[in-house]
């Protein structure tokens, strides 16, 4: 178990993600969020458990369901929210939106919305680390659906043969959009695929922040020591549907109910209370602080200006002059 201050910070991060996502849900109900949204609520233990092992100069890659990864890697909530609302003050100046948030100053190498595309890119960041001779590592988040893409095979294989410092973190939330895992894989554990690349595969309870932390800790140690990549499968569940208008009727009610009893946040809180890292009163206070902070960043994001329309022509190439 991580020491007290770190554990409490993990708890705070999980609450930040949950309240942030609830706020996003609320804002799109008010038609303030353009486009679609893929909420991370329910999977907080995975992002936080992994990122609690990372340094500021370590890298992560993310997916269409990426708000939680950003928050766990210490990205600024107000800049994430502003980006989700399409504002100029957002991380990508309104060019990326919910599915493409990046913060290169903290090693958040961005979210790709092409399922599975992040795996080779993460391997490439790992190769860069190896060639530059630093002891950074990369955590690459992706879902169960991505593990059926060719890029999963190509990316992990390359990372394996070159012993690159990458954690491949599969967040198995059981459904790729509306397709249940059992309909598209004959195996129960994505982590079993690690054997094909000769690397360790681990299956962990993705709703148990400590279990994720411990597994990631081991994988991070291996990676930093130059022993190569690990495939960690975190079994988890999204609380909401796949995207904005998805009522998720393809999920049996009993299944949803069962997973909601395994909500990672109360579970982690219970552990902190048991460990005497936290009192009930302190826990309530942290949550109140988080709620307040999220309110403040919403105000910032909502009040921020939109980019000027002609900014659409900028950032295609590094040189200022556009190629027309």
């Amino acid at each position: 178990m991580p020491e007290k201050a770190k554990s409490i910070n993990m708890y705070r991060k999980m609450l930040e993600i949950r309240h942030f996502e609830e706020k996003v849900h609320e804002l799109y109900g008010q038609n303030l969020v353009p486009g679609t949204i893929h909420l991370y609520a329910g999977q907080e233990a995975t992002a936080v458990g992994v990122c609690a092992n990372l340094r500021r100069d370590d890298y992560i890659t993310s997916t269409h369901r990426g708000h939680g990864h950003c928050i766990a890697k210490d990205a600024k909530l107000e800049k994430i929210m502003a980006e989700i609302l399409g504002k100029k003050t957002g991380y990508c100046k309104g060019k990326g939106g919910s599915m493409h948030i990046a913060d290169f100053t903290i090693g958040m190498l961005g979210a790709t919305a092409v399922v599975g595309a992040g795996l080779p890119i993460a391997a490439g960041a790992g190769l860069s680390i190896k060639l530059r001779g630093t002891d950074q590592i990369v955590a690459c988040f992706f879902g169960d659906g991505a593990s059926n893409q060719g890029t999963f095979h190509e990316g992990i294989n390359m990372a394996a043969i070159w012993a690159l410092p990458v954690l491949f973190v599969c967040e198995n939330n059981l459904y790729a959009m509306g397709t249940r895992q059992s309909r598209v894989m004959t195996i129960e554990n994505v982590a079993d695929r690690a054997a094909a690349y000769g690397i360790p595969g681990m299956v962990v309870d993705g709703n148990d922040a400590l279990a994720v932390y411990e597994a990631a800790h081991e994988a991070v140690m291996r990676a930093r020591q130059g022993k190569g990549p690990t495939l960690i499968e975190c079994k988890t569940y999204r609380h909401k549907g796949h995207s904005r208008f998805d009522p998720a009727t393809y999920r049996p009610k009993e299944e949803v109910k069962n997973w909601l009893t395994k909500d990672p946040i109360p579970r982690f809180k219970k552990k902190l209370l048991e460990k005497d890292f936290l009192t009930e009163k302190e826990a309530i206070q942290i949550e109140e602080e988080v709620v307040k902070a999220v309110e403040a960043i919403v105000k910032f994001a909502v009040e921020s200006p939109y980019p000027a329309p002609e900014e659409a022509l900028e950032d295609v190439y590094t040189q200022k002059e556009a190629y027309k």
Partner: protein
Amino acid sequence: MRKITYRDALREALREEMLRDKTVFLLGEDIGRYWHGAFKVTKGLAEEFGDERVRDTPISESAIIGVATGAAITGMRPVAEIMFGDLSALAMDQIANQAAKLQYMFGGQAKVPLVIRMPFGAGVNIAAHHSQSLEAWFMHVPGLKIVMPSTPYDAKGLLKTAIRDDDPVMFFEHKLLYPIEGSVPEEEYTIPLGVADVKRKGEDVTIVATLYMVHKALAAAEELDRQGINAEVIDPRTLVPLDKQTILNSVKKTGRIVLVTEDCKTAGVSAEIAAVVAEDALDYLDAPIKRVAEPDTPIPFSPPLEQFVIPNEKSIIKAVKEIVY
């Protein structure tokens, strides 16, 4: 000035940039010490720079480009080789959706200093999966730059510039060009992107040609000269950025233009250049724009079939004579 081959010119560019900048490294299938690349461009480089910087990869085009992209956004300058241009289709998401778009999607935070080299072109009887000219695919993807050198001099100078560029650069070579020789100075030089080269001055008609077609256009121009037609031959050298001004200036002088490219005619590069001329210089044209390109077929295997579809001196001369009268 000394003469070296296109292949050697490319190798010199790679070597000089690797010596100059430690972040430059090469990756691709069989480019290392056991094979030196399908066209031997990387011969001797693994021996000189080691297997880490001249990196053989598995046959995984998508991951070659993805890995190169990931390395590029974290401080390296990879030069990825795709063994045949046709195989770029396997890496299309990583090229067109990832490398090309990261900088834009992330609001300018990501720089992607990546060069992707690959040979195009028909003429060596290796059929539909090893002979295409696919530059038009990439010209339609904002965020990519496109270089197509036709001579050893251009190949070296442009490759050095491409490696130093902070954007992803598609660097298209032609398999028939590797053995051709040309003058290349011993001393350091680079060629800026976006500057066309007038390969032959002329007054009667403008011929714009790319890659290997530049040589066929020049041969056609010689023959036309004997017949009293004085053709100007322009090699854009880079399609993105495209030096429109040099082409337009020439059209304004000659009033006639023939576009010669080895890609398929429909929605090909020549269609784009024709549209530029039509938009910006229509009033200067004394005759219709002519296009000489491959018909819309896959590249066939059998020599007479293959030769039938590749533009040649005769088809260029024919097109010129249709508008110069």
